[in-house]
């Protein structure tokens, strides 16, 4: 069975919770005791209907205030796929949560109220999905029941969104007319939209082709941990453990180790369950080489004629996640990228992006909480990276504030800075 991770963004008003509740309910994922608990809580809060949002709002403060604070992860499966939902709140002050939820998603569902059309919030969600390079975007045009399942209205919303999406880099865009409340086109195709000949939302989630989204071209193996058993049985054993970050690796392949530049050949690729003939992302394996070379955590194995960029100067789109202090030129931080950790200095903030209008403010001096901008930084040691658009694993980084140890920024690498 395959696994698909998807992110949903929106607020209660969009019907997001109802949609998720519908998916979980109709796939028989909500358990009776959970439903009982939600019903009890709904009654206690004086609600006239069973508030399915309470299923995902897990923290006391969220239930008390009726808001969603954080990313919640939900799970369901059908005979075809296992699904992991990263359910994120949609308001602008929660941009950092959306970015977090989107970082691992294969697909994003953006909800639009058919009556209201494409709002600022919908544009922001779509932009963040494209910034995080979620390969598949679904626009669920919700509350179709309230516009009498009108095909014309659906087409209008579609055109309106398409015009905006032209400015974005979205590889695969799907429009589905739904009513989360009544279940139209959520699990089953609806008889109320005879003019719609596409799949139901669940059918699309089950069938969308995700196998080719991974990078199988550029072999990248960040060394995570060196395995040296030092036992009688495995006296001279030395293996490089890690998770394949790109490409396909096979025994016999010539490799180059960064940063040393030494070359060797893969002797074997091993796992607890025995050796394997090939390894690809996201397999966690142990690589052994023919030659004794000094290799440690943070090094990277790649191919002699296909190497990542190795540089101390990095140009990236950064989402700032700290409310404590803003990012500005001269900020000193710690970067974590693949298995490397290094100190960095922010050299320049080229511009701050208005995530509602996509306009650039080149005079901006800082990035505050939930703001996104193009940043150049210099790290104390070279990082081995690819463009984020080419490889989400070797193209992503996080920034850590050394004084608080908080994660304060998320970066998507654009390339080497000049």
């Amino acid at each position, binding site marked *: 069975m395959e696994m698909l991770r998807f992110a949903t963004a929106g607020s209660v008003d969009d019907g997001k919770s109802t949609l998720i509740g519908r998916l979980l309910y109709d796939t028989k994922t909500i358990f009776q005791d959970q439903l009982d608990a939600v019903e009890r809580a709904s009654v206690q809060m004086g609600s006239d209907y069973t508030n399915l949002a309470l299923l995902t709002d897990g*923290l*006391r403060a969220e239930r008390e205030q009726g808001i969603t604070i954080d990313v919640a992860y939900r799970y369901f499966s059908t005979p075809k796929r296992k699904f992991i939902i990263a359910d994120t709140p949609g308001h602008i002050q929660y941009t950092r949560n959306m970015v977090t939820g989107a970082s691992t998603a294969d697909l994003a569902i953006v909800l639009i109220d058919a009556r209201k059309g494409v709002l600022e919030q919908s544009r922001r969600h779509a932009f963040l999905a494209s910034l995080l390079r979620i390969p598949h975007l679904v626009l669920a045009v919700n509350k179709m029941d309230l516009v009498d399942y009108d095909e014309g209205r659906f087409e209008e919303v579609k055109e309106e969104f398409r015009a905006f999406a032209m400015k974005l880099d979205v590889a695969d865009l799907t429009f589905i007319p739904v009513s989360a409340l009544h279940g139209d086109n959520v699990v089953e195709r609806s008889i109320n939209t005879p003019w719609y000949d596409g799949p139901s939302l669940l059918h699309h989630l089950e069938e969308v082709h995700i196998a080719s989204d991974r990078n199988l071209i550029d072999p990248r193996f960040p060394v995570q941990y060196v395995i040296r058993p030092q*036992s009688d049985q*495995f006296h001279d054993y030395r293996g490089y453990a890690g998770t394949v970050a790109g490409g396909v690796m096979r025994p016999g392949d010539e490799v180059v180790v960064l940063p040393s530049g030494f070359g060797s050949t893969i002797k074997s690729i091993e796992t607890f369950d025995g050796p394997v003939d090939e390894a690809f992302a996201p397999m966690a394996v142990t690589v052994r080489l023919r030659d004794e070379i000094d290799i440690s955590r943070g090094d990277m194995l790649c191919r002699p004629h296909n190497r990542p960029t190795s540089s101390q100067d990095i140009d990236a789109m950064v989402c700032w996640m700290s409310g404590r202090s803003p990012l500005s030129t001269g900020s000193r931080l710690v970067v974590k990228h693949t298995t490397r950790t290094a100190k960095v200095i922010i050299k320049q903030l080229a511009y701050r992006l208005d995530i509602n209008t996509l306009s650039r403010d080149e005079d901006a001096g800082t990035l505050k909480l939930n703001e996104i901008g193009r940043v150049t930084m210099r790290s104390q040691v070279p990082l081995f990276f690819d463009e984020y658009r080419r490889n989400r694993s070797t193209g992503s980084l996080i920034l850590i504030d050394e004084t608080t140890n908080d994660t304060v920024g998320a970066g998507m690498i654009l390339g080497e800075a000049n």
Partner: protein
Amino acid sequence: MAYDLSHLRQLEAESIHIFREVAAEFERPCLLFSGGKDSIVMLRLAEKAFWPARLPFPVMHVDTGHNFPEVMEFRDRRLDEAGVRLVVASVQKAIDDGRVVEETGPRASRNRLQTRTLLDGIEEHRFDALFGGARRDEEKARAKERVFSFRDEFGQWDPKNQRPELWSLYNGRTRQGEHIRVFPISNWTELDIWQYIRAEDIEIPSVYFSHRREVFERDGMLLSVSPFVTLMNGETPFVETVRYRTVGDMSCTGAVESAAGTIEAIIAEVSASRITERGATRADDRVSEAAMEDRKKEGYF
């Protein structure tokens, strides 16, 4: 398709990555082990992460003293086979030393006493990272917890002040006295665990399979007759064919009526179940809507 990984292999790879990341970045990690199915799967994943080397960290059991004898026998045998060092943090010893006070009455439970015992164990051994087998599908507070979950110097979790966690880049930085709880199987569901146990042919304690047991009914749950619980008025023991969906403290873990005697039968039963495993079998979670969140804030697993 040639380059596809099944959901179990993807989950496994993610967990192995997390185990290795912690071993590389922390000085004194430790794996919490109860002898329950989740910790058994965790132990296997840890073995896979470091093979052919042994686990580069010890295993800790927070022992309430109210154990299923079958589980203790299994624990010792399995850990011996893995060649890992066992550290026991004993609730009984904490009571004897006067660090915690035993609850009284027929409903007395040592559940809450585990928190202090656990935190004392962490402090005594100066552990800076603890692997736990919590899953996000178990409970709604857990659904929002990070894989690397920060604990302050009092062992407390602050749900409103969690570090953002992106891609597979984990921030495990701590100061002296603070630690990180690490949950490598966050994204697994109960069914994934059972499917993995089947796929990997992993041995589990016999109490998970259907057996005849002397039980009594309390608060709609079937509790085992044992030296650790006192029967109240009107509670009459009877023999029933049962099994356990979770394995915890004998005094508050309920059995379910079941004839499932094989992993296949258990998977069929779990797939058809309309009640979550904690809802069905854990008195400790029934206290209130936020019982788990409150205990976690104090430092619970």
